């Protein structure tokens, strides 16, 4: 069965009693036991809820994993897999919130981490220490859209017995399947493409092994950071249109990347779909598309405020992956928590804008960008 078909059919046929095509929303905290020492399989919604389970199992099968789990935030759960003294290698070009999590809560719990340029495999190997437990990969990177060689990283990690955790938020399993390439865990901000409508905040983790699944299930139940049944249902609803949304949005993104690339007011465009992008060929090899996220540098810092102010259709808001196009300013917004010297070293500067391309007509988005970039 093709992925598009699998996506549409998530949750269908689960409710055998009524045949309801839409998964029921089990808005219940607890479940009545048939008798002492007996269980229906559900006891208390923190440990397991049928609606959440439908989402978790669907994600697991879509990603080709062994176990899926839904969280109010996926990253915090994954971090709890590690112990004081453990060392993690973290992709240097990553969302500011991820950096903040490692730098504050992670450090407070004795975790050590090194921000590493994962496009440089020698640097990566050089950073591995006897206490290194995991490599945290994000590809494409955020916001500079670098493509990380998953096969190579997984190969190195296997040699050293290190876990590979891939944040697949930008591409989703529809475009990129890290578990099938040998990664151990895939994490998501499900708020983005999975939900797809800018209306639910949630995280998802899919495990490549039963062992990791058991560990995370323990953390999920004990720490209890689970999303509610209605939010799980909305995520299931989002999954059904994922293929259609992503196909449309990425076609528009390619169109806009080409437009911006030719625009005199734009210094540089970061989009793996452009042939000149250093990760273009690698992206073609390990993913089924180029996604719908792109970043670009305008000619001057002064233009940033103007562009953000003048855009009419594209909303100035922090998030991505929704039906509505959103633009953000990494320098002071999504990546404000990354230290300035790290930002500068990476190339995140005061002229950089990140665009999440939505489902509006591409010509309208182009016209909106064009008027906002004037007089260039």
């Amino acid at each position, binding site marked *: 069965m*093709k992925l598009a078909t699998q996506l549409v*059919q998530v949750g269908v046929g689960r409710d055998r009693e009524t045949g309801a095509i839409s998964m029921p929303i089990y808005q219940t905290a607890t479940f009545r036991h048939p008798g002492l020492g007996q269980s229906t399989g559900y006891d208390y919604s923190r440990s397991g809820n049928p609606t959440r389970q439908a989402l978790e199992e669907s994600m697991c099968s879509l990603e080709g994993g062994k176990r899926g789990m839904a969280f109010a935030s996926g990253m915090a759960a994954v971090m709890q897999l590690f112990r004081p003294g453990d060392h993690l290698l973290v992709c240097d070009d990553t969302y500011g919130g991820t950096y903040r999590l490692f730098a504050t809560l992670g450090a407070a719990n004795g975790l050590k981490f090194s921000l590493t340029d994962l496009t440089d495999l020698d640097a990566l190997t050089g950073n591995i220490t006897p206490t290194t437990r995991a490599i945290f990969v994000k590809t494409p990177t955020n916001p500079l859209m670098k493509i990380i060689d998953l096969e190579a990283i997984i190969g190195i990690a296997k040699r050293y017995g290190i876990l590979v955790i891939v944040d697949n938020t930008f591409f989703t399993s529809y475009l990129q399947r890290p578990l099938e390439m040998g990664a151990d865990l895939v994490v998501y901000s499900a708020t983005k493409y999975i939900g797809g*409508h800018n209306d639910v905040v949630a995280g998802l983790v899919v495990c490549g092994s039963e062992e990791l699944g058991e560990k995370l299930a323990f953390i999920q139940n004990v720490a209890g950071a689970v999303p509610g049944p209605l939010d799980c249902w909305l995520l299931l609803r989002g999954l059904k249109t994922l293929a259609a949304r992503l196909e449309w949005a990425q076609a528009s993104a390619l169109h806009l990347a080409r437009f911006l690339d030719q625009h005199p007011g734009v210094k540089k465009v970061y989009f793996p779909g452009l042939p000149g992008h250093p990760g273009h060929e690698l992206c073609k090899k390990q993913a089924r598309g180029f996604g719908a996220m792109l970043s670009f540098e305008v000619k001057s810092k002064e233009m940033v405020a103007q562009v953000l102010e003048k855009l009419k259709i594209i909303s100035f808001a922090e998030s991505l992956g929704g*039906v509505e196009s959103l633009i953000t300013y990494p320098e002071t917004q999504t990546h404000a928590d990354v230290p300035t010297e790290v930002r500068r070293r990476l190339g995140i500067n005061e002229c950089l804008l990140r665009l999440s391309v939505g*489902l509006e007509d591409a010509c309208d988005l182009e016209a909106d960008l064009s008027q906002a970039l004037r007089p260039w």
Partner: protein
Amino acid sequence: MGKGTKLIHSGHEVDEATGAVSAPIYQSVIFAQPDVDTVGKWEYTRAGNPTRAVLEETIAELEGGKYGFAFGSGMAAIAAAFFIFSAGDHILVAQDIYGGTFRFVHRLLPRFGFKVEFVDTSDINNIKNAIRPETRALFLETPSNPLMKITDLGAAANLAREHNIVTIADNTLMTPYLQRPLELGIDIVVHSATKYLGGHSDCLAGLVVTGKERLAKEIRFIQNSIGAVLAPHDCWLILRGIKTLKVRMEQQQQTAVLLAEWLSSQPEVVEVFYPGLPGHPGRELHFSQAEGAGGVLSFRLQNQEQARRLINSLHLPVIASSLGAVESIVSLPATMSHAAIPEETRRKLGLTRELVRLSVGLEDFEDLQADLTQALEVARLSQD
């Protein structure tokens, strides 16, 4: 602004106070008044609710009208449109309509003294000949469901206007993304928003749109008096559905065209009904008033046993009485969606038990084709 962009930015969706990109769900029945003498914009949710207003303004904008109204189901919306008329009024109704609408106009409206007459509206002369001095309304559905007959909306609207007749069009199958009857002169558009607008088979809803203030006043009165309004959370779900209408409809239509062509060449299939097919009698007219053929098609097999077998052997499409969802849905209109129509009438219309209706979902074309191939094989074997 392009019609695809409009679906996402109707201009009513962002909460000004907070900037929230998703419209807030006002799950509130009442709205406090500042003092005993002052009534605010909102009073009581039956009369009006901020979330419902976003949906109502959005659909009005998309259909090219001015006033939108949301109801608890498609039938509640259709009923509201009919209830602006009175006892003694003569109402002309397209004969090939959804079974639920048929049941309503055939069994319920006569109780209130309405005189209902069915006509084959695919020929404008039939409408002309049926008009009487007391004719007040003309109800149309194009393409018709499930036989996909096409009615000339512009010509029907012009003819009706000459006789002071109010025209109502059910635009469920096309949605404003493909067809906008108000722009062709129709007075009122009704929707089962349960179908393409909601799009996920998870929310029952109906909508009415008009551009005329006089009609809007009547419909608003009926909406508030009868109170068959759509709840705030459901309004929000329909709004959420509308955001992906373009990508769903474009994709489903593309698959429907391929399936219609492929089914036409299958020996087990006697006839395919789909306005996107070159041989369809209403094709030219349809494309003069709509921008696509949509995602629903019907086809006739050789006998009813084959049709039954085919439906029962399909794995992907759900067997259910609905359409316009992300999941493909297959049905036997004669015993399901159109069962309310008396057998004899059904036979006259061609709504027989060999006729299968398929609402094409977002599944991959090749998967649907493979599923239909194996089911047709089962159907064929049943005959041998």
